[in-house]
């Protein structure tokens, strides 16, 4: 049964259902319970924005607060995964990856290869991404390009409550290490989500909107802006296809290339910074494979090559907006 719930509820439900299904699934992170050792309530927080709230009551010892020691506890998740568990560790903001990435990229991501195929490290690292929250330079980044760059890691960036649930369940059941990137501005977005558990497979992009004149390839929160831009453009007779990548690694090359061949006009839209980004990744892939079909240069719409400013006026200029997307499509639309 589908009902409308928020993105945040969808994630909570995915965790809940997987913890119920599989005793090897457990959750850890800073204040994912909240209140450990304190006089007042346990589960006072359920995560800094309340995403894991309520799980403590159901699963007690399988959802655990941690000290502020990301290397130790994410490394512990990695180690536990290598020993047969399915940990879901929360790296509160992806911006904090710089204190603990070794355990993710040199350990979890490489075990299988380095050990000649004899290891399996099914760890999920849930982490918040995204600008627009007035959270400034160290709490607003979208670092999935870095996660995608690393062989052995998978990287998921859901755009809708439906995908959030299905992709998270897939991430937990998946036998490889997964970076699961949750955009903080999406948490309150509502959408239809089936009550029963289901998976959304990795490496299958979602064609959020079909169109024939131009393709906007995007991910995460930007999918919603792309849809809006597409609607506006449709009024002017420009019929856009919107592709939501859903996972950046693995990447759904086929869907992207097919659409590129069909429309021949591409905008890659990404709220991250531009250099060595998902935007360039997709553009290069299309450029290499669909050369003959391209009718216009592939446009990149991204944040600028700057840290994220605090002031609201600046941050609003920083994040790509619907107007910029529209303008870019118009620029290349024949």
């Amino acid at each position, binding site marked *: 049964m589908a009902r409308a719930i928020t993105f945040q509820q969808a994630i909570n439900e995915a965790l809940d259902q997987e913890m119920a299904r599989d005793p090897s699934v457990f959750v850890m992170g800073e204040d994912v319970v909240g209140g450990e*050792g304190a006089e007042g309530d346990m589960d006072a927080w359920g995560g800094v924005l309340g995403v894991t709230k309520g799980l403590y009551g159901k699963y007690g010892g399988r959802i655990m*607060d941690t000290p502020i020691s990301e290397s130790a506890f994410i490394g512990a998740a990695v180690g536990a995964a290598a020993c047969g568990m399915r940990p879901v560790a929360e790296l509160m903001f992806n911006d904090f990856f710089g204190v603990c990435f070794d355990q993710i990229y040199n350990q979890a991501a490489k075990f299988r290869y380095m050990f000649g195929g004899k290891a399996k490290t099914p760890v999920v690292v849930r982490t918040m991404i995204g600008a627009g929250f007035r959270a*400034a330079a160290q709490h607003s980044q979208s670092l999935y390009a870095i996660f995608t760059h690393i062989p052995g890691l998978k990287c998921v960036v859901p755009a809708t409550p439906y995908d959030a649930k299905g992709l998270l369940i897939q991430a937990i059941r998946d036998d490889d290490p997964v970076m699961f990137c949750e955009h903080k501005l999406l948490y309150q977005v509502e959408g239809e989500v089936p009550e029963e558990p289901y998976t959304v497979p990795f490496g299958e992009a979602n064609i959020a909107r079909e169109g024939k004149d131009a393709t906007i390839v995007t991910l995460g929160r930007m999918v919603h802006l792309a849809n809006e831009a597409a609607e506006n453009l449709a009024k002017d007779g420009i019929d856009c296809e919107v592709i939501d990548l859903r996972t950046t690694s693995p990447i759904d090359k086929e869907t992207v290339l097919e659409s590129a061949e069909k429309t021949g006009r591409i905008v890659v839209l990404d709220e991250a910074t531009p250099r060595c980004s998902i935007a360039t990744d997709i553009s290069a892939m299309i450029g290499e494979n669909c050369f003959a079909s391209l009718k216009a240069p592939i446009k990149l719409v991204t944040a600028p090559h700057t840290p994220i400013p*605090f002031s609201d006026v600046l941050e609003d200029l920083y994040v790509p907006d619907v107007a910029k997307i529209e303008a870019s499509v118009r620029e290349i639309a024949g």
Partner: protein
Amino acid sequence: MQLNKDELLTAYRTMRSIRDFEERVHIEFATGEIPGFVHLYAGEEAIATGVCIHLREVDRIASTHRGHGHCIAKGCDIDGMMSEIYGKASGLCKGKGGSMHIANLDVGMMGANGIGGAGPPLACGAALAAKIKGEDNVAVAFVGDGGSNQGTTLESLNLAKVWNLPCVFVFENNGYAEATASKWSVGAENIADRASGFAMPGVVVDGHDFFAVHEAAGEAIERARKGGGPSIIEAKVNRYFGHFEGDAQTYRGPDEVKKIRETKDCLMKFSQQVTEAGLVERTELEAIDREIAALIEGAVTKAKAAPKPAAEELLTDVYVSY
């Protein structure tokens, strides 16, 4: 270390400035006009004040996400701070940093910091700079109880010892890291117990007691300045507001804060002590109260009236040259 009257009044002024600044931000935040996260230092004023009063402008401090108190105590401009918190062009960082990134290197304030445990390495660097230059400047890292468990903090203790740096690590143990109690997250009775594992002195003081902090900091800073190396001060304290504004604090005991405010408040305690000892007149303190009230009022008025940053600011200040 006996303080003279001027010093006492300075200490009071600093603590009062921090308190009023924070109480006012608390109120203004509730109106929705202040964007983002704000972490308030109210309740902990005696620490920043008791430490920084020993520091010269060329001495450096590294701070935390809860940085307003450190900024004020180290001499950052209050108007500039308030404007920064409002994201205005007149802010100390032109509105580009916000509450979590207020800095003013000119007065030795190396920045509030959004990353738990990021300050200690930076403070080691400031101390190292002084050492290499042969200057007797010191550096102080303020760290929370939560931040005390971060590897970056722990390895900085060792580095400071190994390099014999003029660096003091001040752990502000306010009982919580977000909603997690320090008595759970710190796997030891005291954070200061870690000092012996790095062969440096470590003391625990009452962080509500300006004089206790002042004395411990004086010793540690003096030692550092004279080449005696790093040390740890753990100040046990409480925060009056939530982790950040908006935190309902249901993890705390019902009257936890109320009781502390009534019995241990640093401003209350300080006022009592100095007036009872006849060192300062109550009226003198009240004059400071009025002065600070006006200062904060002015800061808020100016912050609200100030323009937002111009659009060009988005792209500037990324590099010195590119």
